[in-house]
Every structure is written in structure tokens, then in C-alpha cells.
């Protein structure tokens, strides 16, 4: 007797002995009913293998790109010495700047995650708490990565610094576009406003006084944002 399981393994081309395969092949050739059953199985399997397309959200793409950039920049750390005597404000200013951008980016990403519950859903208190915890975890990770890569750049050539700025700006644009697509126009506007600051820091890298001024401006906004995050992480994407 030939079972459906036999036919399935026959279709796989594995999991059966050579003798059993030969028996099934002979039976399929001789038995029209079995052959019809076999063809129906193949048709069903073909239909079932066409799983629905799963699109990757832009925010996921942006987060993955950011993590890859962070990993690349982190490789600089062992080779770099923290030379604060020369342009000491540069890494600090960049840290504040990039941390701000990434922190907002993370909050947006989490705000838009498919499994993040809506604030209106009181029935989903546990998932909401989970989303908040995930936010804090993600934020800490991104801040640590960013600090690492920027400290490593203290001794880097201007071209390398410019490359990092370009990368941050690029990621910032992705987050801004994602925010816009999700209807978070205010967030998109805030993100875009940081682009000019970022670019300015890159251009003014040798002017310590200017960098320090920009750092203070960003530091203030970073502090305000972190206070909001600490008070209510789950609503971070709405209140920045």
C-alpha cells in the first residue's frame, strides 16, 4: 500500500529506500487513480509553497543599516587613542549630535514597529510595557555604539570624519522618510532640521569654538529628549 506520506517523500526525492522508490514509481505508472492523487498532491504543494510576500519595513532596513555602520566604525576603536588635547570638543560634539539623531531614529523605529501596541489599547498593557523596554534597550545599545565609534574617530583623518558624518546624515534621512511615510510629519521635520547641524559640524570640525557652540545646542536638546524618554518611553515617538 502506498500512503500519502510515501508520495510526499517520493516528491522530496529523499527519505525513502531505493527499493521503495522503485515500487512507488511502478505503482504510479500502473495505477491511474494513484497518479491522479499524486498530481493533486503536487498541485497542492505548489500552491502551498507560494507563501505570501513579506515586505521589510523601511524602519527595519534603517536600523539594520545603522547597526552595520556602527559595527564598521567600532573596528576603529582599538587603533585609536583618545587624544583630547587636540580638538577635544570634536568627539564630544559628534557624540551628542549623533546620539540625538540615533535616539530619535530608534524611537521612531520602535514607534512604527508592527508589533508596537497603540496607546489607546488598554487591553494590551503588557505588550506596551514590552515595547517600552525594547525601546530603552535599543536606545542604550545605539548610544553606546555611537559613542564608541565617535571616540574612535578622535585621531581620524578629516576625510574619515566626513565619511562618518555622511553616513549619519544618510541614516537620518532614511528615518525621516520613514517617519513621513507613517504620517509623523512633525518627527520628520525635526529629523530634517538636524541634518544641517550635522553637516555644519562636519564642515566646522577644525573650529573648536563653533563646534562647542553646536555641541551645547544639541546637548540641551538631547537632555530634553532623554527626560521625555525617561518619563514615558512608550510615547517617545509622539512627544519629541
Amino acid at each position, binding site marked *: 500500500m502506498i500512503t*500519502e506520506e510515501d508520495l510526499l517523500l517520493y516528491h522530496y526525492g529523499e*527519505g525513502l529506500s531505493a527499493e521503495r522508490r522503485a515500487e512507488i514509481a511502478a505503482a504510479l505508472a500502473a495505477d491511474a487513480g494513484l497518479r491522479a492523487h499524486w498530481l493533486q498532491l503536487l498541485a497542492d504543494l505548489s500552491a502551498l509553497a507560494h507563501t*505570501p510576500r513579506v515586505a*521589510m519595513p523601511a524602519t527595519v532596513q534603517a536600523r*539594520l543599516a545603522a547597526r*552595520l555602520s556602527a559595527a*564598521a566604525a567600532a573596528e576603529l576603536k582599538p587603533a585609536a587613542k583618545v587624544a583630547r588635547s587636540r580638538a577635544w570638543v570634536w568627539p564630544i560634539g559628534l557624540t551628542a549630535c549623533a546620539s540625538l539623531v540615533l535616539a530619535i531614529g530608534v524611537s521612531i523605529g520602535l514607534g512604527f*514597529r508592527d508589533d508596537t501596541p497603540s496607546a489607546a489599547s488598554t487591553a494590551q498593557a503588557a505588550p506596551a510595557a514590552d515595547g517600552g523596554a*525594547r525601546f530603552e534597550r535599543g536606545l542604550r545599545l545605539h548610544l553606546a555604539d555611537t559613542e564608541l565609534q565617535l571616540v574612535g574617530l578622535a585621531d581620524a583623518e578629516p576625510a574619515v570624519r566626513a565619511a562618518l558624518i555622511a553616513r549619519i546624515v544618510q541614516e537620518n534621512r532614511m528615518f525621516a522618510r520613514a517617519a513621513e511615510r507613517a504620517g509623523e510629519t512633525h518627527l520628520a521635520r525635526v529629523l530634517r532640521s538636524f541634518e544641517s547641524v550635522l553637516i555644519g559640524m562636519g564642515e566646522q570640525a577644525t573650529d573648536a569654538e563653533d563646534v562647542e557652540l553646536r555641541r551645547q545646542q544639541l546637548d540641551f536638546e538631547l537632555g530634553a529628549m532623554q527626560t521625555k524618554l525617561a518619563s514615558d518611553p512608550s510615547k517617545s515617538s509622539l512627544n519629541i
Partner: protein
Amino acid sequence: MFAFLNSRPAWSLDEFQRVLARRGERWYAACVRITGDPGLAEDAVQEALLKAWTQRDQFRGESEIDTWIHRIALNAAIDQMRRQRPGSSEELGEDLVAAGESPGTLRGRIELGRDLGRALERLTPLERMCFVLKHVEDWHLDEIAAELNNSINGIKQALFRAVRKLRGDLQQWRGES
């Protein structure tokens, strides 16, 4: 452009970012199908991506990176499932619906939007992983068994159950009660 990466000239960050942009969705989709959870899928892809970055000097071409990351991401997705439900792979075969959770709320599922997506979600984790790895990813039975730390016979049985359930759903959609 990225002079600081010149110690590994074969692959620059920009080139890797381009591979991610072109192929990332496929890796992510495969992991979502395995886990049924977009968050776990993202973690799995990230893990594979960063591993690939650290070993980038081994890759000769984009297709090699693609194949490697795809495979590692699937493995990572399976590991994520294990971490979600610690224990042997046999436990992954438990019927989650029977554990008291409704299919719609289980583990922050995403709405895949079609009947087949929902049907896949109703499979047990072991059945879903076996089905996806065999019928979508085209793995061999022994590869699946090794990856899931199960016997080949156990994998066959999970596949039989998965196909039986899914064909039952298929008949319902066709109106063949």
C-alpha cells in the same frame, strides 16, 4: 570613500550596505516565515549581517554573501525560536493554540494578510519551521534535522502533519469541505 576600512579592501561598508539594500528583504521575509514574529526576524537578520561583516574578507561575490547571510539568518531565527521557548525541539511541536492563547494574539504575530499566511501561523513552531525550510527554502531532511536537533523521522512526521493541515485549509478555501 571609507579610507578607514582599507585594512580589508575586498568589501567596503558602502558595498555591504548595498547588498543589504538589495537582498535584505529576502533574508527578513525568510526569518518572518520561520518565526512568525517580525521582531525576532529582525534580530536574526541583524545577527547574521554583523557576523558576515566580521568575516567579510572570506566572500568573493555578492551572491556568496547573500547565500551565507540567508543561511545564517535562518539558523539565527531558529535559535530565536528556541530562546523564546527554551527546551528541546520536541517542545516546539506543542500546539500553541492549545496552550490557551488565541491565534490572533500569539507572540505579537503579524498579519500576513492572506489565508496561507494565517494557515502557517496555525502550525506549531516545529511544523512551520519544517515546512518553510523544506518547501520554501528547499533544505534537505538531514539538514533540517541537524539544525533543529531532531531525528530525520521526527522531521518527517512534522512535515506530514504540516502538509496534512495545510492541505486541509487549502480544501476549505476551495470550498471542498
